[in-house]
């Protein structure tokens, strides 16, 4: 127990001392997570919107597949992307392996289904009367879609926040595709895994505290957005 208390106290001291290594790890984590969330949002939101807004053959199967992908293990994503971008892979020529770009690619694949599924759920929950009202007031299909988008906006933001929460805390993709290279692709979660392997807990606990604070901030944001959805 003393050991844990000592680690926590040392961790706070490390954070307080503005240790450059520690803050660089936090920076890399936030940067990679930001870009993967941004790209997944730009791809997943319109895709989810399209699926929810249109009737087409195979729609239900597509939604079932997307729902199944919500439980996609990070190591599976890591493995599949690795197969493509490793030197022997068909994209090996791009030299992406063990770069932040590779991590972003893996994370986008990981959270695309989350963004798409939550967007489908958000748009499907919007009362059908909004669509009919916009149309009867003379809106084109595009203008009608904008109305639905506006009505669902808080739930859509919540989808993005959920996706960000998923990538900031994942370890499998970052480790397998980033390689945990110090000062380059080391993120909070991969650093914590390494510190654990080394049996040194201070940095791990410090990063754990930061990760928890980020999670806490995300949850506060998520709850405030959800609250606005319900009002």
């Amino acid at each position: 127990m003393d050991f844990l208390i000592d680690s926590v106290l040392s961790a706070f001291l490390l954070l307080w001392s503005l240790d450059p290594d520690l803050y660089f790890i936090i920076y890399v984590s936030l940067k990679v997570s930001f870009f993967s969330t941004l790209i997944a949002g730009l791809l997943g939101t319109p895709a989810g919107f399209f699926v929810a807004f249109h009737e087409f053959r195979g729609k239900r199967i597509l939604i079932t597949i997307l729902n199944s992908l919500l439980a996609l293990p990070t190591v599976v994503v890591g493995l599949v992307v690795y197969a493509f971008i490793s030197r022997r892979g068909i994209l090996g020529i791009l030299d992406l392996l063990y770069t932040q770009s590779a991590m972003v690619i893996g994370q986008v694949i990981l959270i695309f289904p989350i963004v798409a599924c939550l967007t489908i759920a958000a748009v499907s929950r919007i009362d059908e009367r909004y669509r009919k009202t916009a149309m009867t007031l003379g809106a084109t299909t595009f203008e009608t879609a904008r109305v639905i988008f506006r009505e669902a906006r808080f739930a859509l933001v919540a989808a993005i926040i959920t996706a960000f929460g998923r990538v900031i805390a994942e370890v499998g993709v970052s480790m397998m595709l980033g390689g945990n290279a110090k000062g380059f692709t080391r993120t909070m979660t991969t650093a914590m895994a390494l510190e654990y392997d080394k049996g040194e807990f201070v940095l791990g606990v410090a990063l754990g505290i930061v990760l928890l604070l980020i999670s806490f901030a995300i949850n506060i944001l998520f709850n405030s957005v959800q609250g606005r959805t319900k009002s």
Partner: protein
Amino acid sequence: MTPLFEARKLSKVYKDRAVLDLAELRIEKEMIYALQGPNGSGKTTLLEILSLLIPPTTGELLYQGKSVDFKSRSLTILRREIVMVHQNPVLFTRTVHGNLEFGLKVRGVPKPAREQTILESLDLVGMRDFLRAEAHKLSGGETQRVAIARALVCSPRVMLFDEPTSSVDVENRNIIERIIGDINSEKKISVVFTSHDLTQASKLSHKVIPLFEGRKVPSVYENIFMSTICAGDEGKMRCQIRDGIALLAETGAEGKVKISIDPLKIRLHRNDDHGSDINSLKGKLVQLTDEQSLVRAAVDVGITLNVLLPKEAFKEQSLNIGDEVTVLIPREAITVF
């Protein structure tokens, strides 16, 4: 004169169930029409087809003499002449002003022109004071009135109302009924509205189109009940509506059916004198309403029956609310579906 709407062999089928099946329909310009019928008679479906929101499964709809192509990209242009106000309308989550501005924005009306039109429309429904109010904080009646203003601001040729007063209080009901009249008389906008209330339909409209189970019917079906047909004495068929209420009817149908009892053919008496061949039920008079040359009486016989009496017959019997009466229902008054 070219009619506003003309429909031929119009049908709408949802999952193998025909909810609308009209051989023909004609709606003239600058008039008020009421589509009247009970729940499930296809009123809303017809209104949504007329508003060009949903295509019919089969048949043809003509608007101002031209056949409507529901797949055409230019349908939006046509739709901008016809605005529908839904039953329990939804307002967008923005201000009342933002809601009214929507229809004008999509029509490309410049901002200065918008403001004047918005205020005029709000004045017509008596909601100018709510211009900057958050729309989702309004009451049911206020929401309905803003929804009417939002439709009106688009300067449509046709306005379609689905059960415009079904979810509002008496005060708002009177206001909305007045607005519908004004829209037609002052702005010359053609109006089609649905109502399950025959009194409202007759009072507000120039013409009532009765619908029943998706079809146009010659007269309004009233007193509709679910019942079970069973064989009675001497091979006579009886419709069992509920325990203690069974009526003799002329029918070859069997099992569970829907029946309608023509309110014009029902008679009310204070005494029990009647033949054995006529259905007779005892009940209490619970409501009386003046309907031009007729008096509408609601009688509670265990179920509520609507009866239409000529005014002379009503006066002769000097009936009052609360009176015990005998309701006589001839067999020919009962239609079995």
